[in-house]
């Protein structure tokens, strides 16, 4: 999966290469759980989901702001940094950690390019306290500059946890070659130089909170074993006073790529060569057949069950691994074929084989059984993630992130079921076009 590369910040999010169908209010929806939806006057939406899990619940706040929204110079990584500050307390609850400790909650948050995801998993008896605590911090977060500066040090430490890995180095190189304007140019953790000056950005952090942590930009999900009426009453009571005021950031549009790009980067540690072929792809869209077919194509054409995987990884053993990560994002983003080459001299030949395979999908039609198996994998992949309340929330969060609601998921699922071999071929022709291609290799530096 492409998102493997940004794992440092994406602790637990589920954005698989395969499509994730989910929930809607319609009769033929795939989402299996009893659900209630409501929206407050200030624009806050809430989804209450009865997902079994006796005595437990997951309380999730999705903020539709991520690294994508870091449009100003010098503040890359800020959405993620701000996620850390959200644990620094309020006047009412100065010790957020201590309060959640008293619930025995498993709680954390993670940030990706398109959103920030906060969760607590705890016993259902704590619902009232959790609503109070969470509503309070999203409205009344309060921290001193000293705490802010201290926390910036923790973010630098987090950067260092994984920044030195070859995959992280490659991901930075790929983004910088693909994007010239759009904020997907930087990793969620941010550029190192920006991370190092974070302690100076206290004033900016306050404006970040004022502009983005607003009810119109946040969606709540409560999943598990609890009383809907009680939960709705609590949410209305604690969140209705939250004033709207979201300011849409001016995320730059990426100019259309007009010719193939090539790049190479060296790595100071020991590594076999990494080769990645990337293509600019459209934004996620539940009713666009090309967009949905593209997501299926990644696993089908370059995943573990693909013809080229069998040839290069299993039979000829020229690759250590191969994967196709074709999950789409809120804005137009790249999709990625990634492999590790066993012999450094073989990189050019492997690249030709992969490009030939890309061309083959533009001319030949995919086997009907393979397409059916891919749809089955999407369906069961979705079901298999619904075992826990947090798994349910993670499984559907992508739809919320991309659209602000859960409703389009049925459209997405219907589209997916009707994808034909011709759609896949058309997706390959449109998306895997040479002019939108960026190839980057990472090799070990000469010592």
């Amino acid at each position, binding site marked *: 999966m492409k998102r493997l590369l940004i794992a440092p910040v994406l602790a637990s999010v589920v954005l698989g290469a395969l499509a994730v169908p989910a929930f809607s209010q*319609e009769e033929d929806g795939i989402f299996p759980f009893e659900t209630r939806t409501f929206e407050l006057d200030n624009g806050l939406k809430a989804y209450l989901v009865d997902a079994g899990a006796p005595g437990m619940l997951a309380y999730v706040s999705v903020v539709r702001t991520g690294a994508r929204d870091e449009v100003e110079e010098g503040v890359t990584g800020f959405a993620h940094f701000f996620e850390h500050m959200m644990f620094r307390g309020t006047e009412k609850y100065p010790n957020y950690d201590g309060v959640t400790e008293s619930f025995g909650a498993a709680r954390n948050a993670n940030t990706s390019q398109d959103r920030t995801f906060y969760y607590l998993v705890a016993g259902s008896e704590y619902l009232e306290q959790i609503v109070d605590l969470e509503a309070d911090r999203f409205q009344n977060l309060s921290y001193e500059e000293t705490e802010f500066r201290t926390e910036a*040090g923790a973010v630098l430490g987090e950067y260092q946890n994984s920044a*030195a890995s070859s995959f992280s180095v490659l991901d930075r190189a790929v983004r910088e070659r693909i994007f010239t304007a759009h904020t997907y140019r930087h990793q969620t953790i941010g550029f190192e130089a920006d991370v190092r000056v974070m302690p100076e950005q206290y004033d900016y952090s306050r404006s970040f909170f004022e502009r983005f942590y607003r009810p119109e930009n946040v969606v709540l999900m409560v999943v598990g074993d609890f009383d809907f009426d009680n939960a709705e009453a609590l949410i209305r009571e604690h969140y209705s006073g939250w004033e709207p005021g979201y300011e849409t950031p001016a995320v730059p549009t990426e100019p259309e790529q007009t010719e193939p790009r090539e790049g190479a980067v060296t790595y100071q540690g020991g590594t076999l060569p990494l080769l990645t072929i990337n293509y600019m792809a459209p934004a996620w869209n539940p009713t666009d057949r090309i967009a949905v077919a593209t997501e299926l194509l990644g696993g089908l054409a370059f995943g*573990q*069950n693909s013809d080229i995987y069998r040839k290069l990884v*299993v039979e000829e053993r020229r690759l250590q691994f191969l994967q196709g990560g074709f999950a789409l994002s809120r804005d137009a983003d790249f999709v990625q074929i990634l492999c590790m080459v066993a012999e450094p001299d073989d990189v050019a030949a492997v690249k030709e084989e992969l490009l030939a395979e890309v061309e083959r999908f533009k001319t030949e039609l995919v086997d009907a059984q393979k397409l059916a198996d891919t749809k089955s994998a999407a369906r069961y992949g979705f079901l298999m993630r619904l075992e826990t309340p947090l798994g349910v929330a993670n499984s559907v969060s992508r739809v919320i992130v991309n659209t602000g609601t859960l409703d389009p998921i049925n459209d997405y699922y219907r589209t997916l079921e009707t994808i034909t071999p011709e759609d896949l071929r058309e997706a390959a022709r449109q998306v895997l076009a040479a002019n939108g291609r960026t190839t980057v290799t990472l090799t070990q530096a000469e010592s």
Partner: protein
Amino acid sequence: MTTRRRLPLGIAILLTALTVAYVPAPEESIPGTVTLREEGSPFVAFNIWVKAGSQNDPEGKEGLASLAANLLSDGGTQQHTYQEIVAKLYPMATGYGVSVDKEMTNFRGTVHTDNLEGFYDLLRNALLSPAFGESDFERVKAQTMNFLERGRRYNRDEELSKELLYWMAYQGTPYEHPEEGYVESVRSITLDDVRSFYERYYTRDAIVVGVGGGYPEGFVERVRTDFDARPEGTASNVPAPQPAAPDGLKVLIVEKQTDASAISFGFPTSLVRGGDEFYAMKLVNSWMGEHRSSFSNLYQVIREKRGMNYGNYSYIEAFPRGYTTQNRPVNAMRRSNLFEVWIRPISLTEPGNLHTRTLFATRAAMRELLVLVENGLAEDQIERTQGFLHDFSLNYGSTGSRRLAFAIDDEFYGLEGDDAYLAAIRPELAKLDKAGVDNAIRSHLGAQGMYMVFITADAEAFRDLLLSGETTPITYAGNQPPEILAEDEEISTFPIPVRPEDITIMDISEVFETGR
């Protein structure tokens, strides 16, 4: 509005099952099985436990148990090629994988009840009729060699520092080598080695069949009968390791080009799950350094107040690959454990201060340990941690697969009924009092010696700084309150009494190259 929706034909029945709370169904236990039937669950979890692990690796073939298990998990069978297996698993959106620890090898997989038969056929064949194909072997071995030669050394210093800590503490015992082996030992492994390891250790009495979830009546009997086809075993038990308590501090410094230091330290204890004072020390450890929890003491001191790194935790049981998970690992049970402190990478904040900061963080953690041993825990600290764990431990068994794995782990230690881990945590914690807790602290954490691993740049300069005993003060990006600055004085001068002959320096390129 509240709706309960109808579903597309074909998946309606399985999905509605999800809305029902699963009912654990007691059943007659069959010898050689661990079962956790949950009627109504749409999933079936498998956990095939082979009672062998890296402790069974022959000398010079370290890594064999791991390589053998990975070949079974990622290779073909007499019935199907590897690629045919992949194709059959693909529409089920599942698979099986394996974990190999010192003493345990566990093949795990979860499948939707729809696909139970097809999945079980593949899993059974993988374990009972492996093909041992040359091509599969070469592929899996090449992937392992790449991990040993490059991935382990260059991708995650913090995980490597922990593996090195275990390597230091268990010298001369079957726990000494990392489960994946050394570069040279794995290079020497042949397909015949794998075959003979399989024949020797994958025997019917050494295999416990674990099945959980919504499987049909009679299913477990069938699975057990299948596995009874394996011959009886002749392998003798490996005695539990008796690691020596270190005499003073033993330090390993690994030289690597880096802007951040990885730090691990610890020492052997006599603690095992369910044994004497285990729950008292579980409480103590949770207060001191609960994994990924921000309210624990080490985290508060080093990260929350000082912003030095991403997190700081402690452990009384092995916790492999902790960076990948918030929840505690399963199937890594051992008869000997370390008390272990993991200080996540400490970065330089300006050129030249990497070593000062590295030592400051180490001193801070060592000082907290000393304070804990001297003072014990206060009543309110005990009460708070009891309350936390009472609720937090509900998260341990969040999925059917995890509940089953915990049951397997109970079987490892012979814990049954009320003594089973997930059942015992709450009542055992409730029994604890200050005297018992403080006793446990003194008897398990009072060691004078410990092992320490640092992965950092310019190892010789770091060694010199360590030996000099110099103070290692740090500075902050912001103003700190006087009480923090006063405490910093004590931390920055906290003694680390180490002798020159107890410090070893190693280059990253030599790490785990060979056994000795």
